[in-house]
Protein backbone atom coordinates (compact mmCIF):
# COMPACT_ATOMS: atom_id res chain seq x y z
CA UNK A 1 0.00 0.00 0.00
CA UNK A 2 2.84 2.34 0.93
CA UNK A 3 4.71 1.45 -2.23
CA UNK A 4 1.64 2.11 -4.32
CA UNK A 5 1.28 5.52 -2.73
CA UNK A 6 4.94 6.20 -3.50
CA UNK A 7 4.45 5.22 -7.13
CA UNK A 8 1.30 7.32 -7.44
CA UNK A 9 3.01 10.37 -5.96
CA UNK A 10 6.05 9.87 -8.16
CA UNK A 11 3.96 9.61 -11.31
CA UNK A 12 1.83 12.60 -10.38
CA UNK A 13 4.80 14.77 -9.44
CA UNK A 14 6.07 14.52 -13.00
CA UNK A 15 2.66 15.81 -14.08
CA UNK A 16 3.06 18.76 -11.70
CA UNK A 17 -0.35 17.90 -10.32
CA UNK A 18 -0.12 20.51 -7.63
CA UNK A 19 -1.33 23.90 -6.55
CA UNK A 20 1.22 26.66 -5.81
CA UNK A 21 -0.09 27.05 -2.27
CA UNK A 22 0.63 23.42 -1.43
CA UNK A 23 3.80 23.08 0.54
CA UNK A 24 6.60 21.05 -1.06
CA UNK A 25 6.29 18.25 1.47
CA UNK A 26 3.00 17.33 -0.13
CA UNK A 27 4.66 16.59 -3.45
CA UNK A 28 8.32 15.67 -3.72
CA UNK A 29 8.87 15.54 0.04
CA UNK A 30 6.02 13.12 0.66
CA UNK A 31 7.14 10.89 -2.20
CA UNK A 32 10.61 10.64 -0.72
CA UNK A 33 9.56 10.16 2.89
CA UNK A 34 6.91 7.56 2.07
CA UNK A 35 9.47 5.67 0.03
CA UNK A 36 11.86 5.57 2.96
CA UNK A 37 9.04 4.52 5.30
CA UNK A 38 8.07 1.76 2.88
CA UNK A 39 11.66 0.54 2.91
CA UNK A 40 11.60 0.32 6.70
CA UNK A 41 8.44 -1.79 6.63
CA UNK A 42 9.90 -3.88 3.84
CA UNK A 43 12.99 -4.52 5.95
CA UNK A 44 10.71 -5.65 8.80
CA UNK A 45 8.83 -7.92 6.39
CA UNK A 46 12.02 -9.54 5.17
CA UNK A 47 13.51 -9.97 8.64
CA UNK A 48 10.33 -11.46 10.07
CA UNK A 49 9.98 -13.77 7.07
CA UNK A 50 13.54 -15.00 7.40
CA UNK A 51 13.38 -15.59 11.14
CA UNK A 52 9.94 -17.23 10.89
CA UNK A 53 10.55 -20.56 12.72
CA UNK A 54 8.18 -22.48 10.43
CA UNK A 55 9.67 -21.63 7.04
CA UNK A 56 13.44 -21.65 7.72
CA UNK A 57 14.08 -19.52 4.63
CA UNK A 58 17.64 -18.52 5.51
CA UNK A 59 19.31 -15.21 4.64
CA UNK A 60 20.56 -16.29 1.24
CA UNK A 61 16.99 -16.84 0.06
CA UNK A 62 16.31 -13.21 0.92
CA UNK A 63 19.04 -11.85 -1.33
CA UNK A 64 19.45 -14.36 -4.19
CA UNK A 65 16.35 -14.52 -6.39
CA UNK A 66 14.79 -17.98 -6.91
CA UNK A 67 17.19 -19.61 -4.44
CA UNK A 68 14.54 -20.44 -1.86
CA UNK A 69 13.43 -24.05 -1.46
CA UNK A 70 10.04 -22.73 -0.41
CA UNK A 71 7.71 -21.20 -3.05
CA UNK A 72 10.80 -20.60 -5.17
CA UNK A 73 9.10 -18.58 -7.92
CA UNK A 74 6.88 -16.30 -5.83
CA UNK A 75 9.57 -15.57 -3.24
CA UNK A 76 12.05 -14.87 -6.05
CA UNK A 77 9.74 -12.17 -7.37
CA UNK A 78 9.76 -10.55 -3.96
CA UNK A 79 13.56 -10.60 -3.83
CA UNK A 80 13.78 -9.01 -7.29
CA UNK A 81 11.31 -6.27 -6.38
CA UNK A 82 13.29 -5.62 -3.19
CA UNK A 83 16.63 -5.40 -4.97
CA UNK A 84 15.26 -3.07 -7.62
CA UNK A 85 14.02 -0.85 -4.79
CA UNK A 86 17.48 -0.84 -3.23
CA UNK A 87 18.98 0.26 -6.56
CA UNK A 88 16.34 2.98 -6.93
CA UNK A 89 16.91 4.24 -3.39
CA UNK A 90 20.70 4.21 -3.49
CA UNK A 91 20.85 6.00 -6.84
CA UNK A 92 18.44 8.61 -5.50
CA UNK A 93 20.67 9.24 -2.51
CA UNK A 94 23.73 9.76 -4.71
CA UNK A 95 21.96 11.52 -7.57
CA UNK A 96 24.33 14.47 -7.30
CA UNK A 97 27.26 12.18 -7.92
CA UNK A 98 25.97 9.96 -10.72
CA UNK A 99 24.14 12.65 -12.65
CA UNK A 100 20.53 13.22 -13.53
CA UNK A 101 20.30 11.06 -16.63
CA UNK A 102 21.75 7.94 -14.96
CA UNK A 103 19.46 8.46 -11.95
CA UNK A 104 16.45 8.83 -14.21
CA UNK A 105 17.20 5.69 -16.18
CA UNK A 106 17.42 3.66 -12.99
CA UNK A 107 14.32 5.30 -11.53
CA UNK A 108 12.38 3.83 -14.44
CA UNK A 109 12.91 0.47 -12.72
CA UNK A 110 10.10 1.56 -10.39
CA UNK A 111 7.69 0.54 -13.10
CA UNK A 112 9.20 -2.95 -12.87
CA UNK A 113 9.54 -3.17 -9.11
CA UNK A 114 5.97 -2.30 -8.22
CA UNK A 115 4.10 -4.88 -10.40
CA UNK A 116 6.60 -7.57 -9.41
CA UNK A 117 5.95 -6.77 -5.75
CA UNK A 118 2.20 -6.97 -6.37
CA UNK A 119 2.55 -10.35 -8.09
CA UNK A 120 4.71 -11.55 -5.21
CA UNK A 121 1.89 -10.58 -2.86
CA UNK A 122 -0.72 -12.42 -4.86
CA UNK A 123 1.46 -15.49 -5.29
CA UNK A 124 2.62 -16.06 -1.77
CA UNK A 125 0.59 -13.77 0.46
CA UNK A 126 -1.06 -15.54 3.36
CA UNK A 127 -4.26 -13.50 3.15
CA UNK A 128 -4.47 -13.06 -0.59
CA UNK A 129 -8.04 -14.11 -1.04
CA UNK A 130 -9.49 -12.54 2.08
CA UNK A 131 -11.91 -9.73 1.38
CA UNK A 132 -9.86 -6.98 3.07
CA UNK A 133 -6.63 -7.94 1.30
CA UNK A 134 -8.41 -8.02 -2.02
CA UNK A 135 -9.89 -4.60 -1.28
CA UNK A 136 -6.42 -3.17 -0.58
CA UNK A 137 -5.04 -4.77 -3.75
CA UNK A 138 -7.86 -3.37 -5.84
CA UNK A 139 -7.43 0.13 -4.42
CA UNK A 140 -3.65 0.08 -4.93
CA UNK A 141 -3.79 -1.28 -8.47
CA UNK A 142 -6.55 1.12 -9.43
CA UNK A 143 -4.59 4.08 -8.01
CA UNK A 144 -1.37 3.21 -9.84
CA UNK A 145 -3.08 2.30 -13.11
CA UNK A 146 -5.18 5.46 -12.83
CA UNK A 147 -2.21 7.76 -12.23
CA UNK A 148 -0.14 6.16 -14.98
CA UNK A 149 -3.14 6.59 -17.28
CA UNK A 150 -3.38 10.23 -16.29
CA UNK A 151 0.36 10.63 -16.91
CA UNK A 152 -0.03 9.18 -20.40
CA UNK A 153 -3.11 11.22 -21.22
CA UNK A 154 -1.98 14.64 -20.06
CA UNK A 155 1.37 16.12 -20.91
CA UNK A 156 3.14 17.84 -18.07
CA UNK A 157 2.50 21.55 -17.88
CA UNK A 158 5.92 23.23 -17.97
CA UNK A 159 5.55 26.70 -16.46
CA UNK A 160 8.93 27.73 -17.86
CA UNK A 161 8.44 26.61 -21.48
CA UNK A 162 7.81 30.05 -22.99
CA UNK A 163 10.57 31.83 -21.05
CA UNK A 164 13.04 29.06 -21.75
CA UNK A 165 12.33 29.15 -25.47
CA UNK A 166 12.85 32.92 -25.50
CA UNK A 167 16.16 32.61 -23.65
CA UNK A 168 17.42 29.79 -25.89
CA UNK A 169 16.64 31.90 -28.92
CA UNK A 170 18.72 34.71 -27.42
CA UNK A 171 21.80 32.54 -26.85
CA UNK A 172 21.62 30.48 -30.04
CA UNK A 173 24.21 30.47 -32.80
CA UNK A 174 23.03 32.89 -35.44
CA UNK A 175 24.39 31.15 -38.54
CA UNK A 176 24.04 27.39 -38.72
CA UNK A 177 27.33 25.81 -39.71
Amino acid sequence: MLLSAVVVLGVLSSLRFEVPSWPRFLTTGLHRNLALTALVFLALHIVTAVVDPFTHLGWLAAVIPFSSYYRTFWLGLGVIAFELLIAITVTSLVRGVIGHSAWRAIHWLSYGSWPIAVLHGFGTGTDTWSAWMLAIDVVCIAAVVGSVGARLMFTSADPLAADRARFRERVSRKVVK
Partner: protein
Amino acid sequence: MTVLSLFAGPPSSAGPESFRDHVKRLGPRPRGNGALIDTLDRSGLVGRGGASFSVGVKWRSVESRSRGAAVVIANGAEGEPLSRKDRTLMSLRPHLVIDGALLASDAVGANRTLLYVGEAHGAAAAAMARALAERPPADRARTTLLGAPPSYVAGEETAAVNFVNSGVAVPQATPPRPFERGVDGRPTLVQNVESLAHAALIARYGDAWFQSLGRHHAAGTILLTVSGAVAKPGVIEVASGCSVDEVLALAGGVSGKARAVLLGGYFGGWISADQAGSMVLDPRGLRAAGGSLGCGVVSVLDETADPLDVSARILQHLANESAAQCGPCFFGLRSLSAATTRIAARHADHGDLPQLHRWTAMVKGRGACRHPDGAVAFLESALKVFEPEFATAAGARGRRAS
Protein backbone atom coordinates in the same frame (compact mmCIF):
# COMPACT_ATOMS: atom_id res chain seq x y z
CA MET B 1 53.93 48.54 -7.50
CA THR B 2 52.61 47.56 -10.90
CA VAL B 3 54.15 44.35 -12.07
CA LEU B 4 53.84 43.74 -15.76
CA SER B 5 53.84 40.21 -16.99
CA LEU B 6 50.90 39.74 -19.38
CA PHE B 7 51.07 43.40 -20.33
CA ALA B 8 54.88 43.61 -20.50
CA GLY B 9 56.03 44.77 -23.93
CA PRO B 10 54.53 47.50 -26.08
CA PRO B 11 52.14 49.98 -24.39
CA SER B 12 48.40 49.60 -24.78
CA SER B 13 48.33 52.50 -27.22
CA ALA B 14 50.25 50.27 -29.68
CA GLY B 15 47.18 48.01 -30.07
CA PRO B 16 47.35 44.24 -30.55
CA GLU B 17 50.86 42.82 -30.64
CA SER B 18 51.62 41.18 -33.99
CA PHE B 19 52.79 37.58 -34.25
CA ARG B 20 56.25 38.73 -35.41
CA ASP B 21 56.68 41.08 -32.44
CA HIS B 22 55.30 38.46 -30.08
CA VAL B 23 57.82 35.82 -31.20
CA LYS B 24 60.65 38.35 -31.25
CA ARG B 25 59.88 39.42 -27.69
CA LEU B 26 59.10 36.07 -26.11
CA GLY B 27 60.58 33.47 -28.44
CA PRO B 28 58.71 30.57 -30.02
CA ARG B 29 56.02 28.63 -28.21
CA PRO B 30 57.66 26.02 -25.95
CA ARG B 31 56.57 22.41 -25.75
CA GLY B 32 53.25 21.58 -24.14
CA ASN B 33 53.54 18.23 -22.36
CA GLY B 34 53.19 16.48 -19.03
CA ALA B 35 56.20 18.36 -17.64
CA LEU B 36 54.37 21.64 -18.29
CA ILE B 37 51.41 20.39 -16.27
CA ASP B 38 53.79 19.67 -13.37
CA THR B 39 55.26 23.16 -13.74
CA LEU B 40 51.78 24.70 -13.67
CA ASP B 41 50.98 22.67 -10.57
CA ARG B 42 54.04 24.02 -8.78
CA SER B 43 53.44 27.57 -10.00
CA GLY B 44 50.23 27.91 -8.00
CA LEU B 45 48.32 29.31 -10.99
CA VAL B 46 44.56 29.16 -10.43
CA GLY B 47 41.80 29.79 -12.95
CA ARG B 48 40.85 33.41 -13.54
CA GLY B 49 37.31 32.92 -14.79
CA GLY B 50 35.91 33.11 -11.28
CA ALA B 51 36.26 29.74 -9.57
CA SER B 52 40.01 30.02 -8.79
CA PHE B 53 40.50 26.29 -9.36
CA SER B 54 44.04 24.93 -9.80
CA VAL B 55 45.01 25.05 -13.49
CA GLY B 56 47.47 22.16 -13.17
CA VAL B 57 44.86 19.89 -11.57
CA LYS B 58 42.32 20.80 -14.24
CA TRP B 59 44.69 20.09 -17.12
CA ARG B 60 45.70 16.76 -15.62
CA SER B 61 42.09 15.68 -15.17
CA VAL B 62 41.58 16.15 -18.92
CA GLU B 63 44.98 14.73 -19.89
CA SER B 64 44.36 11.50 -17.98
CA ARG B 65 41.19 10.87 -20.00
CA SER B 66 42.07 12.39 -23.38
CA ARG B 67 43.63 9.52 -25.42
CA GLY B 68 44.74 12.29 -27.75
CA ALA B 69 41.19 13.26 -28.66
CA ALA B 70 40.37 15.94 -26.10
CA VAL B 71 39.05 19.45 -26.88
CA VAL B 72 40.25 22.79 -25.51
CA ILE B 73 37.96 25.80 -25.23
CA ALA B 74 39.68 29.12 -24.51
CA ASN B 75 36.93 30.92 -22.67
CA GLY B 76 36.76 34.60 -23.55
CA ALA B 77 32.97 34.97 -23.35
CA GLU B 78 33.26 37.50 -20.49
CA GLY B 79 29.56 37.83 -19.74
CA GLU B 80 30.22 39.58 -16.41
CA PRO B 81 28.97 43.16 -16.96
CA LEU B 82 31.64 44.78 -14.76
CA SER B 83 34.59 42.89 -16.25
CA ARG B 84 36.72 44.14 -19.12
CA LYS B 85 39.97 42.28 -18.48
CA ASP B 86 39.44 39.35 -20.86
CA ARG B 87 38.52 41.50 -23.86
CA THR B 88 41.38 43.90 -23.02
CA LEU B 89 43.85 41.02 -22.85
CA MET B 90 42.62 39.59 -26.17
CA SER B 91 42.75 43.05 -27.77
CA LEU B 92 46.35 43.68 -26.70
CA ARG B 93 47.99 40.23 -26.39
CA PRO B 94 46.00 37.89 -28.62
CA HIS B 95 49.04 35.69 -29.31
CA LEU B 96 49.63 35.07 -25.63
CA VAL B 97 46.09 33.68 -25.40
CA ILE B 98 46.49 31.58 -28.56
CA ASP B 99 49.88 30.30 -27.32
CA GLY B 100 48.25 29.29 -24.04
CA ALA B 101 45.38 27.54 -25.81
CA LEU B 102 47.75 25.59 -28.09
CA LEU B 103 50.03 24.70 -25.17
CA ALA B 104 47.00 23.42 -23.27
CA SER B 105 45.95 21.51 -26.36
CA ASP B 106 49.37 19.83 -26.64
CA ALA B 107 49.67 19.17 -22.92
CA VAL B 108 46.25 17.55 -22.43
CA GLY B 109 46.28 15.74 -25.78
CA ALA B 110 43.63 17.66 -27.71
CA ASN B 111 43.11 17.69 -31.45
CA ARG B 112 40.67 20.59 -31.47
CA THR B 113 41.12 24.08 -30.05
CA LEU B 114 38.26 26.54 -29.88
CA LEU B 115 38.60 30.25 -29.11
CA TYR B 116 35.26 31.24 -27.58
CA VAL B 117 35.15 35.04 -27.70
CA GLY B 118 32.24 37.30 -26.75
CA GLU B 119 30.65 38.27 -30.05
CA ALA B 120 29.66 41.65 -28.64
CA HIS B 121 33.31 42.44 -27.82
CA GLY B 122 34.23 43.71 -31.27
CA ALA B 123 37.82 44.81 -30.72
CA ALA B 124 38.77 41.57 -28.95
CA ALA B 125 37.10 39.37 -31.56
CA ALA B 126 38.77 41.31 -34.37
CA ALA B 127 42.20 41.12 -32.72
CA MET B 128 41.83 37.38 -32.17
CA ALA B 129 40.71 36.82 -35.77
CA ARG B 130 43.62 38.82 -37.12
CA ALA B 131 46.06 37.07 -34.78
CA LEU B 132 44.84 33.65 -35.85
CA ALA B 133 45.29 34.64 -39.51
CA GLU B 134 48.93 35.59 -38.77
CA ARG B 135 49.66 32.14 -37.39
CA PRO B 136 51.42 29.36 -39.32
CA PRO B 137 49.05 26.99 -41.20
CA ALA B 138 49.67 24.20 -38.67
CA ASP B 139 48.32 26.36 -35.84
CA ARG B 140 45.40 27.61 -37.91
CA ALA B 141 44.33 24.14 -38.98
CA ARG B 142 43.65 23.03 -35.42
CA THR B 143 42.10 26.25 -34.11
CA THR B 144 38.60 27.70 -34.60
CA LEU B 145 37.35 31.12 -33.57
CA LEU B 146 33.82 31.04 -32.20
CA GLY B 147 31.53 33.91 -31.17
CA ALA B 148 29.98 33.58 -27.68
CA PRO B 149 26.44 34.98 -27.38
CA PRO B 150 26.12 38.03 -25.13
CA SER B 151 24.67 36.56 -21.95
CA TYR B 152 25.78 36.09 -18.38
CA VAL B 153 25.65 32.29 -18.40
CA ALA B 154 27.20 31.82 -21.88
CA GLY B 155 30.64 31.61 -20.27
CA GLU B 156 29.63 28.92 -17.78
CA GLU B 157 31.65 25.90 -18.86
CA THR B 158 28.78 23.51 -19.61
CA ALA B 159 27.04 26.33 -21.52
CA ALA B 160 30.16 26.85 -23.63
CA VAL B 161 30.33 23.10 -24.33
CA ASN B 162 26.63 22.97 -25.17
CA PHE B 163 27.04 25.92 -27.52
CA VAL B 164 29.68 24.01 -29.48
CA ASN B 165 27.59 20.83 -29.44
CA SER B 166 24.15 22.18 -30.21
CA GLY B 167 24.49 25.90 -30.86
CA VAL B 168 22.67 26.96 -27.70
CA ALA B 169 24.68 28.46 -24.83
CA VAL B 170 22.67 27.21 -21.84
CA PRO B 171 24.18 25.40 -18.84
CA GLN B 172 23.69 21.66 -18.47
CA ALA B 173 23.16 19.58 -15.36
CA THR B 174 26.35 18.02 -14.01
CA PRO B 175 27.79 15.44 -13.73
CA PRO B 176 29.20 14.70 -16.23
CA ARG B 177 31.46 17.73 -16.10
CA PRO B 178 33.19 18.87 -19.31
CA PHE B 179 36.51 17.28 -18.29
CA GLU B 180 34.70 13.93 -18.30
CA ARG B 181 32.38 14.41 -21.27
CA GLY B 182 32.26 17.70 -23.12
CA VAL B 183 32.40 18.60 -26.81
CA ASP B 184 31.19 15.57 -28.84
CA GLY B 185 31.33 13.57 -25.62
CA ARG B 186 35.10 14.00 -25.44
CA PRO B 187 37.08 15.21 -22.40
CA THR B 188 37.08 18.99 -22.70
CA LEU B 189 39.20 21.65 -21.01
CA VAL B 190 37.34 24.94 -20.60
CA GLN B 191 39.84 27.53 -19.41
CA ASN B 192 39.59 31.29 -19.07
CA VAL B 193 41.77 33.25 -21.54
CA GLU B 194 43.74 35.03 -18.80
CA SER B 195 44.64 31.70 -17.21
CA LEU B 196 45.87 30.45 -20.61
CA ALA B 197 47.96 33.60 -21.18
CA HIS B 198 49.63 33.09 -17.77
CA ALA B 199 50.30 29.47 -18.72
CA ALA B 200 52.00 30.63 -21.94
CA LEU B 201 54.46 32.69 -19.88
CA ILE B 202 54.96 30.03 -17.19
CA ALA B 203 55.84 27.58 -19.98
CA ARG B 204 58.63 29.97 -21.01
CA TYR B 205 59.95 31.23 -17.68
CA GLY B 206 59.02 28.52 -15.17
CA ASP B 207 57.12 28.20 -11.92
CA ALA B 208 59.72 29.92 -9.72
CA TRP B 209 59.54 33.02 -11.93
CA PHE B 210 55.73 33.06 -11.63
CA GLN B 211 55.92 32.67 -7.87
CA SER B 212 58.42 35.54 -7.65
CA LEU B 213 55.92 37.93 -9.28
CA GLY B 214 53.52 37.66 -6.36
CA ARG B 215 53.84 39.04 -2.86
CA HIS B 216 54.32 36.89 0.22
CA HIS B 217 52.79 33.51 -0.57
CA ALA B 218 50.65 34.69 -3.47
CA ALA B 219 51.75 33.69 -6.97
CA GLY B 220 51.91 35.64 -10.22
CA THR B 221 50.03 38.68 -11.35
CA ILE B 222 46.31 39.27 -11.72
CA LEU B 223 44.27 41.31 -14.15
CA LEU B 224 41.66 43.49 -12.46
CA THR B 225 38.86 45.62 -13.82
CA VAL B 226 38.53 48.63 -11.54
CA SER B 227 35.33 50.65 -11.87
CA GLY B 228 32.91 52.87 -9.99
CA ALA B 229 34.03 55.82 -7.89
CA VAL B 230 37.71 55.95 -8.89
CA ALA B 231 39.56 58.61 -10.83
CA LYS B 232 40.95 56.27 -13.51
CA PRO B 233 38.72 53.22 -14.03
CA GLY B 234 40.04 50.49 -16.28
CA VAL B 235 41.96 47.23 -16.50
CA ILE B 236 45.22 46.96 -14.56
CA GLU B 237 47.76 44.24 -13.90
CA VAL B 238 48.95 43.94 -10.31
CA ALA B 239 51.05 41.59 -8.24
CA SER B 240 48.99 38.90 -6.61
CA GLY B 241 48.95 39.53 -2.87
CA CYS B 242 48.65 43.32 -3.04
CA SER B 243 45.91 45.10 -1.09
CA VAL B 244 42.68 46.71 -2.29
CA ASP B 245 44.04 50.09 -1.07
CA GLU B 246 47.03 49.76 -3.40
CA VAL B 247 44.73 48.87 -6.28
CA LEU B 248 42.55 51.90 -5.64
CA ALA B 249 45.65 54.11 -5.49
CA LEU B 250 46.74 52.73 -8.89
CA ALA B 251 43.32 53.61 -10.24
CA GLY B 252 43.86 57.24 -9.29
CA GLY B 253 42.28 57.01 -5.87
CA VAL B 254 38.67 57.01 -4.75
CA SER B 255 36.64 60.01 -5.79
CA GLY B 256 34.63 61.04 -2.75
CA LYS B 257 34.26 58.70 0.20
CA ALA B 258 33.87 54.96 -0.36
CA ARG B 259 30.94 53.15 1.25
CA ALA B 260 31.71 49.65 -0.02
CA VAL B 261 33.65 47.68 -2.62
CA LEU B 262 32.13 45.02 -4.86
CA LEU B 263 34.79 42.34 -5.21
CA GLY B 264 34.46 39.66 -7.88
CA GLY B 265 31.58 41.17 -9.84
CA TYR B 266 27.93 40.14 -9.90
CA PHE B 267 28.81 36.71 -8.50
CA GLY B 268 31.11 38.23 -5.91
CA GLY B 269 30.09 40.22 -2.89
CA TRP B 270 30.08 43.59 -1.18
CA ILE B 271 32.71 44.38 1.40
CA SER B 272 32.34 47.50 3.53
CA ALA B 273 34.94 50.15 2.72
CA ASP B 274 36.59 50.01 6.15
CA GLN B 275 37.26 46.28 5.76
CA ALA B 276 38.05 46.29 2.05
CA GLY B 277 41.13 48.52 2.12
CA SER B 278 43.45 46.11 3.88
CA MET B 279 42.11 43.07 2.04
CA VAL B 280 44.78 41.06 0.24
CA LEU B 281 44.04 40.14 -3.38
CA ASP B 282 45.29 36.60 -3.69
CA PRO B 283 42.99 34.28 -5.69
CA ARG B 284 44.28 31.12 -4.01
CA GLY B 285 44.31 32.62 -0.53
CA LEU B 286 40.84 34.12 -0.83
CA ARG B 287 39.44 30.82 -2.09
CA ALA B 288 41.04 28.96 0.82
CA ALA B 289 39.46 31.50 3.18
CA GLY B 290 36.03 30.84 1.70
CA GLY B 291 35.95 34.12 -0.22
CA SER B 292 36.61 34.75 -3.87
CA LEU B 293 38.38 37.14 -6.16
CA GLY B 294 35.94 35.96 -8.83
CA CYS B 295 36.97 37.30 -12.21
CA GLY B 296 38.95 40.22 -10.77
CA VAL B 297 36.30 42.92 -10.60
CA VAL B 298 36.91 45.72 -8.08
CA SER B 299 34.06 48.23 -8.14
CA VAL B 300 33.83 51.13 -5.69
CA LEU B 301 30.52 52.47 -4.38
CA ASP B 302 30.78 55.96 -2.93
CA GLU B 303 28.64 57.32 -0.14
CA THR B 304 26.43 59.42 -2.39
CA ALA B 305 25.19 56.36 -4.32
CA ASP B 306 22.26 54.31 -3.04
CA PRO B 307 23.62 50.84 -2.25
CA LEU B 308 20.12 49.33 -2.28
CA ASP B 309 19.36 50.67 -5.71
CA VAL B 310 22.69 49.44 -7.10
CA SER B 311 22.19 46.00 -5.51
CA ALA B 312 18.60 45.76 -6.76
CA ARG B 313 19.72 46.50 -10.32
CA ILE B 314 22.44 43.86 -10.20
CA LEU B 315 19.99 41.30 -8.85
CA GLN B 316 17.49 42.22 -11.54
CA HIS B 317 20.15 41.67 -14.18
CA LEU B 318 20.98 38.23 -12.77
CA ALA B 319 17.28 37.33 -12.60
CA ASN B 320 16.86 38.30 -16.25
CA GLU B 321 19.89 36.20 -17.15
CA SER B 322 18.37 33.00 -15.75
CA ALA B 323 18.15 30.51 -18.59
CA ALA B 324 14.66 29.54 -17.34
CA GLN B 325 15.67 25.90 -17.07
CA CYS B 326 15.07 25.43 -13.35
CA GLY B 327 12.12 26.76 -11.36
CA PRO B 328 14.06 27.72 -8.20
CA CYS B 329 16.43 29.85 -10.29
CA PHE B 330 13.87 31.48 -12.57
CA PHE B 331 11.05 32.06 -10.09
CA GLY B 332 13.32 32.39 -7.05
CA LEU B 333 15.58 35.08 -8.49
CA ARG B 334 12.58 36.90 -9.92
CA SER B 335 10.93 37.03 -6.48
CA LEU B 336 14.17 38.05 -4.75
CA SER B 337 14.75 40.74 -7.32
CA ALA B 338 11.20 42.09 -7.06
CA ALA B 339 11.34 42.27 -3.26
CA THR B 340 14.77 43.96 -3.31
CA THR B 341 13.54 46.46 -5.89
CA ARG B 342 10.49 47.27 -3.73
CA ILE B 343 12.73 47.84 -0.70
CA ALA B 344 15.13 49.99 -2.74
CA ALA B 345 12.18 52.05 -3.98
CA ARG B 346 11.17 52.60 -0.35
CA HIS B 347 7.77 51.05 -0.69
CA ALA B 348 8.35 47.55 0.51
CA ASP B 349 5.56 45.18 1.45
CA HIS B 350 5.46 44.36 5.13
CA GLY B 351 7.13 40.94 4.80
CA ASP B 352 9.68 41.74 2.09
CA LEU B 353 12.82 41.87 4.20
CA PRO B 354 12.11 38.69 6.21
CA GLN B 355 11.11 37.01 2.92
CA LEU B 356 14.49 37.87 1.40
CA HIS B 357 16.22 36.06 4.24
CA ARG B 358 13.88 33.07 3.99
CA TRP B 359 13.98 32.78 0.20
CA THR B 360 17.77 32.97 -0.12
CA ALA B 361 17.96 29.68 1.78
CA MET B 362 15.32 28.12 -0.50
CA VAL B 363 17.09 28.99 -3.75
CA LYS B 364 20.67 27.99 -2.93
CA GLY B 365 21.93 24.78 -4.53
CA ARG B 366 18.66 24.10 -6.37
CA GLY B 367 19.69 24.86 -9.95
CA ALA B 368 21.34 22.68 -12.57
CA CYS B 369 24.22 25.19 -12.58
CA ARG B 370 25.49 27.64 -9.96
CA HIS B 371 23.70 30.69 -11.35
CA PRO B 372 21.14 30.92 -8.52
CA ASP B 373 23.88 30.29 -5.93
CA GLY B 374 25.98 33.17 -7.27
CA ALA B 375 23.04 35.55 -7.28
CA VAL B 376 22.04 34.58 -3.75
CA ALA B 377 25.61 34.94 -2.47
CA PHE B 378 25.66 38.46 -3.91
CA LEU B 379 22.34 39.32 -2.25
CA GLU B 380 23.50 37.91 1.08
CA SER B 381 26.57 40.13 0.99
CA ALA B 382 24.32 43.14 0.29
CA LEU B 383 22.00 42.22 3.18
CA LYS B 384 24.99 41.98 5.48
CA VAL B 385 27.02 45.03 4.45
CA PHE B 386 23.99 47.30 3.97
CA GLU B 387 21.99 45.94 6.89
CA PRO B 388 21.12 49.37 8.37
CA GLU B 389 20.07 50.70 4.97
CA PHE B 390 17.90 47.64 4.31
CA ALA B 391 16.25 47.89 7.74
CA THR B 392 15.42 51.57 7.32
CA ALA B 393 14.23 51.21 3.74
CA ALA B 394 12.08 48.15 4.46
CA GLY B 395 10.24 50.08 7.14
CA ALA B 396 9.80 53.15 4.93
CA ARG B 397 6.58 52.00 3.32
CA GLY B 398 4.43 54.92 2.27
CA ARG B 399 7.18 57.43 2.89
CA ARG B 400 8.91 57.29 -0.47
CA ALA B 401 12.34 58.80 -0.34
CA SER B 402 12.81 61.21 -3.20
